[in-house]
């Protein structure tokens, strides 16, 4: 199934050679496992329970009603306002990420249903330049929320991001303010925003839109925090507790509402949405 059946034009060229092997090795337990079994198991290692990254498609498939996803993402992609070049040009990095993921940028937004309840769902893809938030992601998140307002339905955002996209400089930083401003509009009209934090939800995404959910749910194994371990150790050379920035850490310190296993997430959302049936 392709979740993008309705708007094929959003796809960019995928030139990556498909991986033909049937088996993979789990990096956590070392076991050789049958790929299909992993995929059927929501990308969780059937041997040790390790979570592997989900592609946007896999994440969406896992969460929404079958064959029910209308990709409403705006037909946009990253511009290069700073003409940024580090070891590679930003342009190249974007094209490469588009090639790997088959996505225009690190997020897809769609109109969908979860257990028959209409919602607008945004899902980030960490493989696209670390799921970083640049102008495109900021715009798509706002577009998602605005569609939720128009549709009078809840907005759900699944974050998987290292933070702001460095290559767009201040444009990226300001997406924090932009998404926040639109989030306020969603609140004004009394529509729920459910934020799901997965591995990782950090930096500028964690310090803006992802932390502003009416309800915040972390996927088990999520990494949640503002400053990365390396930044902290570099800046203040502090010893970090072993559970630092884990789901448990965030939960114990009151930053999130719940921690939910990946294979329970759909059910969790369904339950949660049922409370808002009257308002949305």
């Amino acid at each position: 199934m392709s979740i993008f059946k309705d708007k094929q034009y959003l796809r960019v060229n995928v030139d990556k050679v498909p991986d033909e092997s049937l088996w993979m090795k789990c990096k956590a337990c070392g076991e050789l496992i049958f790929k299909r079994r992993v995929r059927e198991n929501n990308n969780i290692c059937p041997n040790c329970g390790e979570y592997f990254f989900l592609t946007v498609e896999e994440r969406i498939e896992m969460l929404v009603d079958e064959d029910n996803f209308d990709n409403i993402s705006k037909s946009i992609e990253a511009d290069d306002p700073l003409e940024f070049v580090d070891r590679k040009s930003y342009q190249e990095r974007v094209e490469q990420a588009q090639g790997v993921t088959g996505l225009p940028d690190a997020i897809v937004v769609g109109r969908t249903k979860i257990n028959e309840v209409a919602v607008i769902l945004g899902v980030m893809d960490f493989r696209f330049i670390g799921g970083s938030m640049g102008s495109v992601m900021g715009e798509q998140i706002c577009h998602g929320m605005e569609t939720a307002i128009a549709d009078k339905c809840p907005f759900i955002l699944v974050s998987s991001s290292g933070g702001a996209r460095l290559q767009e400089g201040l444009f990226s930083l300001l997406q924090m303010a932009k998404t926040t401003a639109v989030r306020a509009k969603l609140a004004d009209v009394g529509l729920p925003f459910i934020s799901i934090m997965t591995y990782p939800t950090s930096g500028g995404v964690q310090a803006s839109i992802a932390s502003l959910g009416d309800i915040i749910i972390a996927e088990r194994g999520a990494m949640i925090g503002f400053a990365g371990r390396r930044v902290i150790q570099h800046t203040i050379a502090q010893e970090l507790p072993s559970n630092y920035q884990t789901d448990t850490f965030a939960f114990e310190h009151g930053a999130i509402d719940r921690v939910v296993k990946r294979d329970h997430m759909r059910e969790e959302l369904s339950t949660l949405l049922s409370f808002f049936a009257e308002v949305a």
Partner: protein
Amino acid sequence: MSDERTLDLLEAKIEELKQLNVMDGIDLSSEIAKLEKKLVELRRELYANLSDWERVKIARNPKRPYALDYIQTIFTGFYELHGDRMIGDDRALLTGLAQLNGQTVVIVAQQKGRSTEENKERFFGMARPQGYRKGVRAMKLAERFGFPVITFIDTPGAYPGVESEEANIGGAIAESLLTMSQLRTPILSVVIGEGGSGGALAIGVADRVLMLENAVYSVITPEGAAAILWKEKDKTKEAAAALNLTAEHLSELGLIDTVIPEPLGGAHKDFDQTVEALKASLVGFLNELRKIKLDKLLDARFKRYRSIGSYRELGVSEQEAYSEETAPSGDAPVEEAPDE
């Protein structure tokens, strides 16, 4: 080309000559005048060709005026308000009442310390959650009484320590952004030194954003960018240039409203002149904002932020059919998340 330190030495020498001139009755006036002229020329040359990285160094220069220096000269009767009413009082982020031209404003400012001792207390201007929450409290107080809010940005970033994460620094920054985006009173923000990432933006959502000429404002420090993107520490200069973090660049990109000129050599070279320029700008913008009806102001603020972004239509030539078979399987567990 001469660098700033050399010019500072020359300036000191000229001062010594002047002393000599006065004390010993030797007349060096014309020589001194020539030297002073030369100094100005050299400075002009230097600053006309300043690299962005050199600009960063000026922005971080410990001689540079800090928030309280401006607050105490531009405003009258700064009355500091302390505490977030929850866990603590952050000395890196100050809040208070003050008057500007006889009208009350609320100030929210990041304050670096000058001495090691002071920085122990001020965390080098890096605010913790209690700082941002105190800021939110002060801004809500401003809203209640219709006082405009003026924020001074000068921070390497939010304090990245365990205690910050324990008190949900990300959530505190997000709350501050949300508060400012809805605050029913005019907001002016001015970047006076370092505008460091989310920790800076947290008090920077405003109706008008000002920057001093040698201030910088960036999504990440040049050092951080060099480490993450170039994977080489000595690429900070390149990173600084690539990030477009100077006032001039950001003004050209339309991301800030105005650049306040600084004297040659930086704000500290002629503090009074800097103060005068900044004050005139603040007063001007404030008068402008006060004339706008609140609903219109909020509408404009919303539109300002809603429209920020640089992207383009997906190129038609790049669009091709997509089939499931070619989709990557995403089966690799990731070892670690990036830092920023």
